[in-house]
């Protein structure tokens, strides 16, 4: 199982990127159609990010938990109608019940991780006992595992370390692909604007 997944992850990076771009474009087109081109900057940013996330998740949907968590998160956010339409458009033929049933916390990972870090410092200051290095290392690993769980979408439900690390692997890879594509798109759109400016 692990070898298969690892091989698949390794082989499908470029395929994944293409798929992601296709879906993202599709989602952006849907956004544009729905919002009728009159959006504020924040709205645009939100729409871009959401569509990118959803596209990324939909490329990995059947495989991983984090993608399902992303989709469920998007589905359970405030402006339901819009998001759900977008999800349906991007994800398409995905089993809805399965996806929407997975409830996950909607707060962003960054805030939580910072809070945990703060708490860790406090704990360290308060507890000044002499602990053996083994126990200390275990504690450190536990803390970091918790932070990583909070960073991954849907990481709260991952109890097993093996599952967590696998999900982290997949998530990192897909994030990388996403960043690459977005950077390419930004780089592709910048010269146009620049050339427009220069001309």
């Amino acid at each position, binding site marked *: 199982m692990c070898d298969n997944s690892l091989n698949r992850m390794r082989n499908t990076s*470029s395929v994944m990127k293409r798929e992601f771009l*296709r879906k993202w474009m599709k989602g952006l087109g849907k956004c544009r159609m729905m919002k009728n*081109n009159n*959006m504020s900057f924040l709205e645009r940013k939100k*729409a871009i990010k959401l569509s990118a996330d959803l596209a990324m998740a939909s490329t990995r949907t059947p495989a991983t938990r984090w993608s399902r968590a992303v989709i469920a998160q998007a589905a359970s956010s405030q402006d339901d109608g819009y998001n759900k339409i977008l999800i349906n458009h991007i994800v398409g033929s995905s089993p809805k019940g399965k996806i929407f049933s997975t409830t996950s916390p909607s707060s962003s990972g960054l805030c939580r991780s910072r809070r945990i870090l703060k708490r860790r410092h406090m704990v360290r200051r308060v507890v000044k006992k002499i602990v053996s290095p083994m126990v200390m*290392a275990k504690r450190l690993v536990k803390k970091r595992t918790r932070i990583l769980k909070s*960073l991954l979408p849907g990481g709260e439900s991952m109890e097993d370390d093996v599952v967590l*690390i696998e999900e*982290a692997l997949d998530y990192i890879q897909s994030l990388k*692909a996403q960043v690459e594509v977005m950077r390419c798109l930004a780089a592709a759109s910048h010269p146009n604007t620049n050339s427009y400016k220069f001309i």
Partner: protein
Amino acid sequence: MLRCLNSSENLPESCSAMTLLERQRDRMKWQLSQFHHHHPNQCFFSGSGFEGGFSSLQVPNPGGMMMVTNNGGGGSGLGEAAANAGSVKPDPGLENGWSELGKVDLPGVGFVSSGFNASSAISRTSSCPPSVAAAAAAAEGTPTEKMRSTSGRESFKKRKSEKAQIPKAVVAENEKNKKSKTSGEEFGESKVTTTDNNHNNNDKNRETSVESSKENSKASEVQNQKPDYIHVRARRGQATDSHSLAERARREKISERMKYLQSLVPGCNKITGKAGMLDEIINYVQSLQQQVEFLSMKLAAVNPTIDFNIDDLFTKEVFPACAPTSFPAIDMTLTPNPAAYLQQFDPTHVASCSGLDMGIINPPDLGLRRTISAPLALPHETFLDSSCFNQIMPFSTVEGDIQNLYNVTFDQARSTTSSFPSQPFTGLIEASNLKMDM
């Protein structure tokens, strides 16, 4: 087990030494065997059984009535028997013989656990009266008595040598009797046809049967101990129960994933330790998420309307450019650790075993040749060399050379086999042994 075999090998010698009294003892043994046939489950080596047997056997033996009843009386019966003999038969030669016999046999009675010896001694003493009754006044009695006494002395010496061995054997065999009832039954069955040799045969048979049963039990244990997780190998000193095996498998899985993550996350190659790696991963994930955030903002800022009408163009133009630089080919260089370890370990192990065996079996000439050729040999054969050295030690002329050779090989071993840490240690031990022997 070796001691048991030794004792069983010593027994026929003692029996052959006493060939003079074979007939009488045969008769006694036959009666004994009948007695044992009646009580097959009784422990063979408990001297009480034999003495009881003698006390029951005395009735058909009219010649040595008094003597034998005294024998049956208890452990000190032999001394009393000797005293009785001395009082009843005032023959000087006989008296000497009897006193000697008494002296000889009294310590022998001391250890009752060695049933066979005690029985032989008793039979000897009990076999005396018929001969004495047949030729009481004749002078022929004295040589036989002397012969008997000498044989008794010899057997006593042997008994002394056996003294240390037999109780252990008895203890071991008691354990065996507890372990396997079938061997006891076999023992009882074969007791029906006992002669002198059959005693030894019985011992051997029993031992072989016990050995076979032990081996069977070992084999069954090995079969039972076959773990559920065959792919997980427990190294030395690691626990082998299923929980720890599963835990180990899980940890191995995690470390595998961690390695893959290491190759995925840049700048994570030099970090060892799970906490540091997790830190790196967390930082990387955070940075990636921030990048996504930033890029989406950038895209939103760049494009006032979200129309990326470059779909087809994009897939054609940009992706060939970014595809080669996008993902470095990730090589999973996961070394199959246990297999490698075994491959590293096995040759040395086998070499050590073979070396030990050959060191034991080979005559010293072969050993010498091998030691001379040792510096040219592989470093794995250092075990072999050391064992041979141990064997050659009695040759005093070659000692200095051997010492030098040994030092050379030892240094070689130390320098070349740094990967296998236990080898230098054994080498050290061997060296200390060498010095002790010198």
